[in-house]
């Protein structure tokens, strides 16, 4: 009952916002268009972008700029929800927004590692959002020229500790730093969930994130075995130290298995193998998104007055932007609409 009251407003708002998101039919129409300005003109007519983009000149915009604008729209919508949310709901949103922080940190680190001399990371899409929701000083961080400075600039922030730990390892790579941030974030979610949430919310969070972590672990295992031929010990070192439905023995067996058939048989016997019948070890990559979306939608439908609604909307919004970005790319390079739709559906 309490949930019904506290979520009734935000749930209605989210439903309204969700209805504006670009649908698959619209994407199909977009794919029929012949060039990028037309796509922008099309988007300018949709309810999601009509208001914010009304002053833009579609002919002068580059595809990269459009992608930034799309990214900005994620943060814009997040802020709208945040403003509407009460204290309890903001706890979740605060936790969730760290994902964006990690995203921008990774972008900056990529820049530091790969092409130091090219343009710095464009932080304009993030600026507005970070002023409101984050303690990170983006200007200072983007001004750094190497990892040492970057880590030093983070001093006092929660991400300092995991990153500085990695620095102690010999020959630390971009992947290790990114992994450290992710692991830190995931374990934080898993560890604080019981303190922050209760009742239905706790249940939804546990399911959503638990399945996510399990799936990520499965992905890690399959990927590292299939593509990188890593030793079991190296694989273990990368796993997210959280188990939801995957048992320790199952993970052990999966990691130690030697042949492809053996792996597949082992996977069949796990919770996920039983739950999703057409899920196979080889299409796990593609299925990860489908499954996550499926879980979130189901939860949001079952419990429309819970935190699952927030999570589900934020996921869909990001997903919409991702798909639009692919669509734009396909239009730009003249990919056949049918083939393009395949790419989009896979994500």
């Amino acid at each position: 009952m309490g949930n019904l009251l506290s979520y009734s407003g935000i749930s209605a708002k989210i439903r309204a916002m969700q209805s504006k998101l670009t649908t698959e039919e619209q994407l199909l129409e977009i794919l029929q268009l012949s060039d990028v300005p037309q796509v922008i003109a099309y988007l300018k007519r949709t309810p999601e972008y009509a208001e914010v983009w009304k002053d833009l000149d579609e002919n002068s915009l580059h595809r990269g700029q459009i992608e930034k604008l799309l990214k900005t729209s994620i943060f814009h919508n997040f802020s709208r929800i945040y403003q509407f949310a009460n204290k309890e709901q903001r706890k979740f949103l605060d936790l969730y927004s760290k994902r964006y922080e990690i995203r921008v940190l990774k972008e900056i680190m990529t820049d530091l590692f790969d092409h130091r001399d090219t343009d710095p990371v464009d932080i304009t899409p993030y600026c507005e959002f970070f002023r409101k929701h984050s303690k990170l000083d983006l200007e200072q961080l983007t001004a750094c020229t190497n990892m040492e400075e970057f880590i030093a600039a983070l001093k006092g922030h929660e991400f300092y500790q995991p990153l500085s730990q990695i620095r102690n390892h010999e020959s630390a790579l971009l992947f290790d730093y990114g992994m450290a941030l992710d692991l830190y974030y995931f374990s934080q979610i898993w560890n604080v969930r019981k303190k922050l949430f209760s009742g239905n919310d706790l249940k939804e969070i546990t399911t959503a994130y638990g399945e996510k972590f399990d799936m990520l672990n499965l992905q890690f295992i399959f990927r590292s075995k299939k593509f990188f031929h890593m030793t079991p010990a190296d694989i273990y070192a990368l796993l997210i130290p959280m188990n939801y439905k995957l048992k320790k023995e199952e993970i052990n067996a999966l990691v130690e298995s030697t042949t492809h058939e053996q792996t597949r048989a082992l996977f069949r016997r796990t919770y996920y193998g039983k739950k999703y019948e057409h899920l196979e070890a080889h299409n796990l990559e593609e299925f990860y998104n489908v499954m996550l979306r499926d879980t979130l939608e189901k939860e949001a439908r079952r419990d429309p007055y819970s935190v699952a609604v927030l999570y589900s909307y934020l996921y869909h919004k990001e997903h919409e932007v991702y798909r639009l970005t692919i669509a734009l790319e396909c239009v730009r390079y003249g990919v056949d609409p049918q083939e393009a739709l395949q790419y989009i559906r896979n994500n």
Partner: protein
Amino acid sequence: MIEKMKFLSITGPKADIDRMTETYLSRYEIHLESALAELTEDANLSPFLEINPYREALTSISSFYEQLEDPESVTPQKMDTETAVSVVRRLQKESRELSETREKLHAQHAEMIDSLKIIRPFRNLDYDVSEILKFQYIHYRFGRIEKQYFKKFEKYIYDALDTIFLKCSEDEQYYYGVYFVPKHQAHKIHAVYSSMHFEQIFVPDCYQGTAKEAFSILDKLHKDIHAALEQNKKDSERFLIDNRTAIVSAKAALEACSSSFDIRRLAACTKGENNTFYILCGWMTEKDALAFQADIKDDDKIFCLMEDEQSPAKKTPPTKLHNPKLFRPFEMYIKMYGLPAYNEMDPTWFVALTYSFIFGAMFGDVGQGLLLFFGGLILYKTKHMDLAGIISCAGIFSTFFGFMYGSIFGFEEVLHAFWLKPMTAMMDVPLVGRLNAVFVIAIGFGMFLILTCMVFNIINSVRNHDTEKTWFDSNAVAGLVFYGSIALSAVLLVSGKKLPAAAVMAVMFGVPLLLMFLKEPLTNLVEKKKQIFPEQKGMFFVQSFFELFEVLLSYLSNTLSFLRIGAFAVSHAAMMEVVLMLAGATEGGSPNWIIIVLGNLFVCAMEGLIVGIQVLRLEYYEIFSRFYAGNGREFLPFKKRECQ
């Protein structure tokens, strides 16, 4: 009064300079000038160069002195130079011993701290370390592993692996420990450990017994070293405290020697290999100079030349004020404004009189005046504060005016007013109307002061042979006549007498104004310069016109400025009335004495401050600006007279 100065040149054999300084310059105050700069026409002089032998000892004692806590509290004792130098040597030796001990301890500490740091995380290992290090068929590694990886390791791998991990200790991030593997599997298992980010720590074979014993031995050693360092620190402090008197005394003695020695910097030498002479030049008061000359008459190694009529000194002498004891505190105000030049009039006595008088008039109260007098006197005698002396003087006049106004601690009815009550005494002034009498008197007094200052200015200017400032300036004779005419007319007007005839008035006001208007050409005329009028005549007339306008305005504003004397006399009475009202003394019956006392203290402090500042402003702005330049330089004796 400004002391008369005489310029002296002292000379003697080069080697005799220290004896001369020691014997005579400590008795006679002399303001030295750089001899080389003074005696420029004689090219045969060179600077007196010699290395100061006390410099090194002085530097070293100064460094000790700086380490002392609160060195001012120690009174230096008399010490001769040899003792001072030997004290410095002794102190240097002792402190060197202390610092050598300290360095030795630091070295020991640096040597053992690494092995202690290595063994610390493994101190719970109850096994002989060097035996482990000698294992042949079992491989081992000391090290640490991050907690998150260790958890994964324990969960997924440890049970299946032929290895033993001994956890020794942990901190926030890591588990420390040692693991063992059989030799034939070592390669594989080392790889697993390194996958789990196990970081090896190299343990040298330098420990005795079990890790626990080795740690406790090293830990004790470490503590001992720290204790010894602490002790060393205490010894150093002790050393400073024990020697504080010696340090302060030796520093004072060496400083005196060194500065006497530094007299060479101001001296010059005659040229030549042998028979060189030093030359010192400087200023002495006339009295000192004569006494000094008499003193050295029998000393055949010193020759002294004094300026006289034939060879007068070329430079302006420094200023040394010499005033009666009573006026001496007021020298502070003069110094704040700027010392008078040597040939200028010393305004100290004038300031002393007017300051105290005006202060008294503005703050007339018998009780509070006496408080100021005694308070100031006590502070002046004990703390030697000049300001307190000034307050004390002002207090006397305050008391005096208290009697005149009949006011004691704000009670107006107790004493009979010898003169008038500032609040109530009124007076009719033509053209203005009824006014407080004190206002009119204040203005009158102000006019008198302004006239006096003009006279001073004329005297100073005559002495300086400054024609413009003597005759045509707004503070010169022209100004004096003009302003005097105004003052006279005002007096006649107020006293109800008839004014002089219009023609006389026109001459009285018109002529001085014209003179002031034409002061530049007139000066040029008197000084017989070629060009009388400046080239741009129009510009000159416009400028002079506005200057004249400004002069007239400033006469008015400066006169009105003196109104404040009357205003404060009234305000004092009014403020005390408020105090009495608050205390309930006005309605009869017994007043609240606490409020009376606190109110009196408050008014006394606040008015004392405000009146003190206002009078100073009158002095500087209305009085000094008329006649006083204050651009003299101070007489700085090379050595203060010792008998003082």
